[in-house]
């Protein structure tokens, strides 16, 4: 019964994402007024967040543990992070133009989670190393930071497209400025979360494996991601790189994020963090 509730709420989230995506197309086509668009987006993202949250909660209650132990659960939490981040930031900012690419990402992540093999989806007991309160401290900030980096990458792509048009109209210039501002804001929100995740990971490793840092592939790739965004922040705050270069660095950072999060298992790089083998 509990299992039925878990998958019903997840399916609800998937269906809402799909409906919301098509609603975006309609909104773009008929050029709805901004206020209506915002209301529709907030309701859609609110319901998606609620669906995933309920699904994860039921799973957590069912398993009597914090529901982050395999790839399925982490994909759901990442998606929840993206939806919640958009929902909150869109309350006071006009981010509706980002809704449709974000919905594509959310749909992609939810479908991937739903289609994972049972070995990555089934609720299995935790191995001894994962039985720690550090799991709830270390993992969610990292997954939420990935959400911010994904959003930063989407606006970076928008910025690159707009710059390549080479339009000098005030509207185009204003849009570029907005993209740059958003790109920076997403990263300065995501970067502390990434740092917090890496640091708490080191502290957990110190307690569990007896070393703060082991040069494990996952740790290494997290450090690569950290260096990418560190380079971005240094270049951005010192005005030492053009907007396009910064956008490429953000996209490089997303690649590093992907490798850290999924690539490590997808390409079988091994190491101590092989909980989510694909």
């Amino acid at each position, binding site marked *: 019964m509990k299992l039925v509730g878990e998958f019903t709420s997840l399916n609800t989230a998937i269906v809402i994402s799909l409906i919301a995506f098509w609603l975006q197309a309609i909104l773009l086509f008929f050029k709805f007024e901004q206020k209506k668009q915002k209301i529709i987006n907030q309701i859609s993202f609110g319901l998606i967040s609620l669906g995933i949250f309920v699904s994860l909660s039921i799973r957590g209650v069912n398993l009597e543990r914090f529901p982050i132990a395999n790839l399925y659960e982490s994909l759901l939490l990442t998606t929840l992070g993206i939806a919640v981040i958009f929902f909150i930031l869109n309350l006071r900012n006009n981010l509706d133009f980002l809704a449709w690419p974000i919905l594509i990402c959310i749909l992609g992540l939810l479908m991937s989670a739903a289609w994972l093999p049972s070995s990555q989806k089934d609720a299995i007991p935790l191995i001894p190393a994962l039985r720690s309160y550090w799991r709830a401290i270390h993992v969610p900030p990292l997954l939420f930071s990935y959400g911010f980096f994904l959003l930063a990458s989407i606006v970076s792509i928008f910025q690159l497209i707009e710059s390549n048009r080479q339009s000098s109209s005030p509207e185009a210039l204003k849009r570029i400025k907005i993209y740059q501002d958003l790109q920076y804001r997403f990263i300065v929100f995501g970067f502390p979360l990434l740092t917090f995740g890496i640091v708490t990971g080191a502290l957990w490793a110190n307690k569990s494996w007896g070393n703060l840092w082991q040069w494990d592939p996952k740790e290494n790739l997290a450090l690569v991601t950290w260096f990418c965004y560190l380079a971005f922040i240094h270049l951005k705050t*010192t005005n030492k790189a053009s907007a396009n270069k910064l956008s490429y660095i953000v996209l490089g950072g997303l690649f590093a994020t992907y490798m850290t999060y999924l690539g490590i298992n997808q390409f079988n790089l*091994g190491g101590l963090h092989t909980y989510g083998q694909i």
Partner: protein
Amino acid sequence: MKNKYISKEFTKLFSSVKLAVCLFILLAIIIFLGSCIPQEPLVGRLALIEQFGLSQYQLLKSLGLNDVFHSWWYLGIFILLALNLIVASFIKVFPRSKKAFSWPSFLKEIPRKAPKCPERIPPNPFLEPTLRGLGGEDLDCFEIPLSFSISDNHKNTEWNNLKQKLKNNNWEIKVNENDNSLISRKGAYHRLAPSLTHIGILTILFGALISLLFGFNGIIEGIPEDRFIISSKEDSQRSYILVTTSKIFHSPIWIGKSPEFEVEIGNTKRENYADGNPKQWFTELKFFSNNGDSLKATIASVNDPVSFAGIDFYQADWNRVLRLKFNNQDFEIKLDKIKLGKQKTGEVALNQVSKDLGLLFLVKGKDKNNIAVNNTRIISELPLPRGLGGETNEDGIGFSDTPKLKLISTNKISKSLEDINLKPIAELSPNQETQIGPMKFKFIGAYSKTGIQYKYSPGDIPMIIGMIILIIGVSIAFGSKKTIWAIRKNIDDINKNDIRVSKTSTLAPGLSPTSPLEMGSQNSNKDLNKNSQIIFLMGQSDRDKAAFEREFEDLKNNLS
């Protein structure tokens, strides 16, 4: 003179942001490579040779790519980055943090010209660049100044209102002696972010250095009653069942000293879930002085290390093992580590080179609990670990008290268990042996074996403090330092022709040398009388400009 030049160039190079960014990117690429290529310390030399072949392995080794994180060039780049961090911190970052809480100058005049920023400044948003021409020497450069003016016909009403609004919104206010100019600021502490971040990283590096100089680590693997002395050198005087000395690992520049105590493994057990998967591993550790006096006994488990004399002991590994002697060669087989194949069988090679002789483990249920050699199969009465179809005894700790090993021969080499013709040869209890043709086989016993990692790392405390500072640093960086300047002037002091009423814009579109002073739409030139005052406001935020624009607009709407 020459030394001064060298010192200047060194400082310039190593405080450069460009160098830092280049090193970040270079390190990112190298670490990426080091993550994609299996590293020898993690997987072992044989695995690398198997994967790449001998010639490619030698090439990797000559480039240091088989062990990137211990190669001299990787350490060299890391040292360069550390130098860059130290020099930049003391030359650029820390001096700027002093200015975080300094107040800029008051406006002396209503600026008529947008302060022009050079193309590539500010070099750092945390830096206070100078802005000349506004009556102050230390004002920030305004790329896009937010500004507007209102009239105050009732003299102090709007001026006091402005001050009250700013106070209500938690702005710090400083008013000049004539009460006709004020500066207000918020979030000055955000400018401490770079300094805190750098202090955090420097503290981590300091901690790492301390651990490098004095720290050590190692691992002890053994069965109950094995006793170890932790030492920097082998101790041939002592002889225990497996290991006499657990040799510590330390850096080449180690100046620490070995501990002076012995540690013995007590009871060790594995706690299982209902389905047989491992839930937790426990090991009792007993500490003794060199004279044999008992000092302490305690239990370590995963995620719950124990500490003794400043050394931390971690439950790192746990296995059920079989110890065998095959043709006088010792074998230890970790049953929990055996991977099952398609037919639910697991193989362990006894001949490491040719791999033509080995043990075949069969899952219980398919046959009995089995251990087998290719030609001569050996079947065991041992309860094999969960996952191999076996059972544990009641408290889940491992083997039964009387493990036995059955040897069975077969004339057929086959992977299909049904085809094997099993003929019992012998039954071995622990420490019994038998001769099978040219092969001599001894069953030493079956044990629960624990792996305990230990570490002495006096730099951990500074490193953890550094990490906390680092988190605080990067966390406060997302906020911005905002400043608002206000100045009021009597209308007589201003040329009325310069005042234009804006009906549309809520924010003045920046100042220019030719544009008149923008006023809110509800003000009109008619409203201005000789008692009127003009209040001019200007604001700036180093980051998150959109949020500041909203805040500035709210303030304007509340005033005008």
